[in-house]
């Protein structure tokens, strides 16, 4: 009950100031009069009595102050006064204030920007129902497909496996499947113009397992995902719906992709961006339509085609450990019964023995970005933290000097009754004002900076698609950081400032009275500053050095003057047979004929696009631990080596004589030649894919080519083999062109040439091979550039500070 009265009395005291003041005066006067009256009655003269009564009371101001301090409003009021006073004092030395705010803004801004990136990549949970109960099968690093029985930890699964697992499992209330690849088909909405869709293929129960409610219409359900090819429905993302005018009649319309019309049944809720961090699908389509979306993928019926990520929702009461045990038990049962059958080899049994599923939390979704960026981000935030520490040390030093210069002011205030703690408190408030202003400017900077960070790290469109605007959590972080820094740089100077000899300071006038311990403190701060700056400098140059090393690394191929077109060949509607081969050769020939084109070739991969690797068995050479590692494979056109300028070391490249029905051939790289044929020529020898010696005579080696980097500039040389696409029929997503002249003129010319052969083949993106090589070091470059700029920034703020020092002399 007292609380309300307390608050209302407090408010009355704050706002009905004059009345309260008058009543207090009256009470005090009444007291003195009564006391004087009593003394008079006891025989003291009236003047004496009045004097004695007043002496008993003491300073009425002090008594009134003590009466007032019975309530909270006094604290609030003195806080307000201190705040006003602090702002006034800061405005009195604008140079110092500006420098302090700027250097803090840079420090806090850098931290906020990096933290907001961390927030998106590592910390944000999915906007779904109870995300903590979601688990991902495997660490979720791989994209694409695997086949066979992977040894060890599994992370991609086939559709038949998913079906039998989710039927038999007892620990999950539901298991959802997501194709690890985001598809990018072209399509049209209700007869409109052709556009690129980012499509995620998911199981029918995807939305219900996650607990995502429809924004509009309905989400997918199990019946959409029952029979292959029969679930031509789609859920569209809220962002896509908005981009298309938020038209309520969109639900019910259809999207046409590759000859199929997908009825839009609903719109996902606004916050839901899918389960993979950095990817924002436009469409969710049932997995049953996989073959229709991507004709090369036979995942629905092929139990060896493993391309799905699985996410399960734990049943209530089931612990993580129980789920892990149960999952692995069922996993091995299914492997034994469905995968290997009767004629199980010893090796297969061993693989099943080693096979396991590591459950990881799916609360934050699948974050491949997290795997890639978590260490760099941690390094960066440490660096940014150092910068802020330097700024704090700097500022503490300046405040110390300022405190010494203001000692007369403090002495005066103490002489007229201010307590030491009151002054220290006011100084802390000054620091707090500085820090908060710094934080505000810093957050404003960070707002833009995190986008700049992204562009710097931008090695793929997925990163650019992320939403990195600071949210409440980030703002809270910056605010906490500001409080922390204020305490860090403000505390010691505030306490130090009030520790002096009062009369000495007053007599000295404007003299500066820094106690000797203050000087040693200042020295300590400078030492700390220099040390931290050195650490920064060392880190920056280290990162820069390793980056330079990377960019100087010999790629093997010549990355200059090569354009790489990303295209969707399957859109041409050509079936996977000799007609496709014919189309591919036609395109290559037509583009070769374009003026300025030196060579052109399809390929499964160019640098840093992915990996196809498998075991190898070489005819006549027994397997030893030294030679049994995976070989990296690539499927290429006849012009690939000249497009990449990869010189042949021995034998020949591929030619028109290598036909679909002629003997299978391969070109291997120097490392593979060295491993298997250290002292003789490999030409004419044979090998097979996989570890089965029965196949070791499948493929003849016709050439040896120079080593080239496959996935990363820093990788050590690995065994690799190339096959001609005439003998490995597939749809390609890559087309490389070596040219002379201007890239800007080449791009439309090549596009035209391809369109002349088949206008339905859509080109999604164009980059240069040099860009691809650069992109592979994006993370390192990001760190190097950032640590460098952060180090520069810290230098700038220190320079600003020392200028501020000069300015400070006038305040």
């Amino acid at each position, binding site marked *: 009950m007292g609380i309300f*009265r307390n608050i209302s009395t407090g408010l009355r005291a704050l706002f009905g100031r004059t009345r309260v003041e008058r009543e207090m005066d009256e*009470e*005090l006067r009444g007291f003195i009069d*009564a006391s004087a009256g009593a003394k008079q009655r006891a025989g003291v003269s009236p003047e004496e009595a009045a004097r004695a009564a007043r002496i008993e009371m003491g300073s009425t101001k002090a008594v009134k102050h003590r009466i007032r301090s019975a309530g909270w409003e006094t604290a609030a009021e003195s806080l307000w006064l201190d705040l006003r006073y602090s702002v006034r004092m800061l405005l009195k030395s604008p140079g110092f204030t500006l420098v302090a705010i700027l250097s803090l803004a840079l420090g806090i801004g850098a931290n906020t920007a990096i933290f907001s990136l961390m927030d998106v990549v590592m910390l944000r949970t999915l906007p779904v129902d109870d995300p903590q109960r979601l688990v991902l099968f495997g660490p979720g690093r791989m994209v694409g497909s695997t086949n066979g029985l992977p040894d060890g930890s599994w992370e991609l699964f086939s559709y038949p496996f998913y079906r039998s697992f989710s039927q038999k499992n007892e620990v999950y209330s539901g298991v959802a499947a997501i194709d690890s690849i985001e598809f990018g088909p072209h399509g049209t909405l209700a007869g409109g113009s052709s556009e690129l869709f980012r499509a995620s293929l998911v199981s029918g129960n995807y939305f219900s397992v996650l607990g995502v409610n429809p924004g509009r219409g309905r989400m997918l359900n199990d019946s959409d995902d029952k029979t292959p090819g029969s679930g031509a429905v789609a859920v569209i993302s809220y962002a896509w719906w908005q981009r298309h005018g938020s038209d309520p009649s969109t639900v019910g319309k259809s999207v046409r992709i590759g000859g199929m019309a997908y009825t839009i049944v609903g719109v996902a809720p606004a916050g839901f961006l899918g389960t993979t961090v950095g990817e924002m699908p436009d469409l969710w389509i049932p997995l049953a339509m996989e073959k229709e979306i991507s004709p090369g993928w036979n995942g629905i019926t092929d139990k060896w085609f493993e391309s799905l990520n699985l996410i399960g929702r734990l049943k209530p009461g089931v612990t993580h450990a129980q789920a892990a045990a149960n999952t692995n038990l069922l996993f091995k049962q299914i492997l034994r019964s469905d995968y290997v059958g009767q004629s199980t080899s010893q090796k297969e049994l061993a693989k099943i023995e080693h096979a396991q599923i590591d459950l990881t939390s799916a609360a934050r979704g699948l974050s491949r970005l997290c795997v890639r960026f978590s260490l760099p981000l941690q390094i960066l935030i440490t660096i940014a933290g150092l910068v802020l520490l330097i700024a704090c040390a700097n500022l503490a030093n300046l405040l110390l000097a300022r405190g010494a210069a203001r000692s007369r002011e403090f002495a005066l205030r103490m002489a007229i009754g201010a307590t030491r703690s009151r002054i220290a408190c006011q100084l802390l408030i000054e620091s707090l004002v500085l820090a908060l202003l710094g934080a505000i400017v810093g957050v404003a900077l960070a707002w833009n900076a995190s986008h700049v960070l992204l562009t710097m790290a931008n090695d793929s469109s997925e990163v650019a698609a992320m939403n990195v605007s600071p949210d409440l959590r980030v703002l809270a972080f910056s605010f906490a950081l500001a409080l922390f820094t204020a305490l860090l740089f403000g505390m010691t100077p505030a306490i130090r400032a009030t520790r002096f000899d009062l009369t000495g300071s007053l007599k000295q006038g404007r003299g500066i009275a820094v106690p000797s311990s203050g000087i040693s403190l200042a020295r300590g701060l400078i030492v700390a500053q220099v040390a931290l700056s050195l650490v920064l400098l060392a880190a920056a140059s280290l990162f820069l050095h390793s980056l330079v090393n990377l960019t100087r690394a010999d790629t093997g191929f010549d990355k200059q003057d090569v354009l790489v077109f990303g295209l969707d060949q399957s859109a041409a509607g050509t079936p996977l047979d000799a007609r496709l081969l014919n189309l591919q050769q036609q395109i290559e020939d037509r583009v070769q004929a374009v003026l300025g084109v030196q060579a052109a070739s399809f390929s499964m991969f160019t640098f840093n696009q992915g990996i196809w690797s498998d075991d190898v068995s070489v005819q006549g050479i027994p397997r030893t631990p030294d030679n049994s590692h995976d070989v990296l494979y690539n499927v290429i056109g006849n012009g690939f080596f000249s497009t990449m300028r990869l010189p042949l070391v021995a034998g020949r490249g591929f030619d028109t004589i290598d036909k679909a029905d002629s003997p299978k051939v391969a070109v291997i790289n120097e490392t593979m030649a060295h491993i298997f044929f250290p002292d003789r020529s490999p030409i004419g020898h044979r090998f097979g894919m996989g570890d089965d010696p029965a196949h070791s005579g499948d493929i003849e080696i016709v050439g040896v080519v120079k080593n080239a980097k496959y996935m990363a500039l820093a990788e050590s040389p690995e065994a690799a083999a190339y096959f001609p696409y005439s003998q490995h029929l597939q749809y390609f997503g890559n087309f490389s062109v070596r040219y002379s002249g201007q890239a800007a003129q080449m791009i439309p010319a090549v596009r035209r040439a391809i369109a002349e052969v088949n206008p339905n083949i859509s080109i999604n993106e164009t980059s240069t091979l040099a860009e691809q090589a650069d992109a592979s070091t994006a993370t390192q470059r990001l760190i190097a550039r950032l640590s460098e700029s952060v180090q520069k920034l810290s230098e700038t703020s220190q320079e600003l500070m020392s200028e501020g020092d000069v300015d400070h002399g006038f305040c």
Partner: protein
Amino acid sequence: MGQKTGDMVQGTLEMLILKTLALEPMHGYGVALRIEQVSQEVFRVNPGSLLPALARMERAGHVKSEWRSTENNRRAKYYLLTAAGRKALKQETASWDRQAAAIARIMEA
């Protein structure tokens, strides 16, 4: 500002005020006078301590105040004990009795 509260035991002032007001509503000077007289001038309550103490107790809800006219027809702020104040007095008296008895035992030992 030399405010000597006699040698009053720390924290007992509010208890003495409560006890004094339990008899009848009084103004500030009345309280001071009463404590002085009853204690036979052992305790002299200084207004610099008394008035802030009353303000604190009013905030705590132990007393409330109203303006009344005094016996010689002047306006004065009278303090009255509330129900909460009565309860507080009871508690403080009990704990004081315990402490005093304990101290007495120690001193006599």
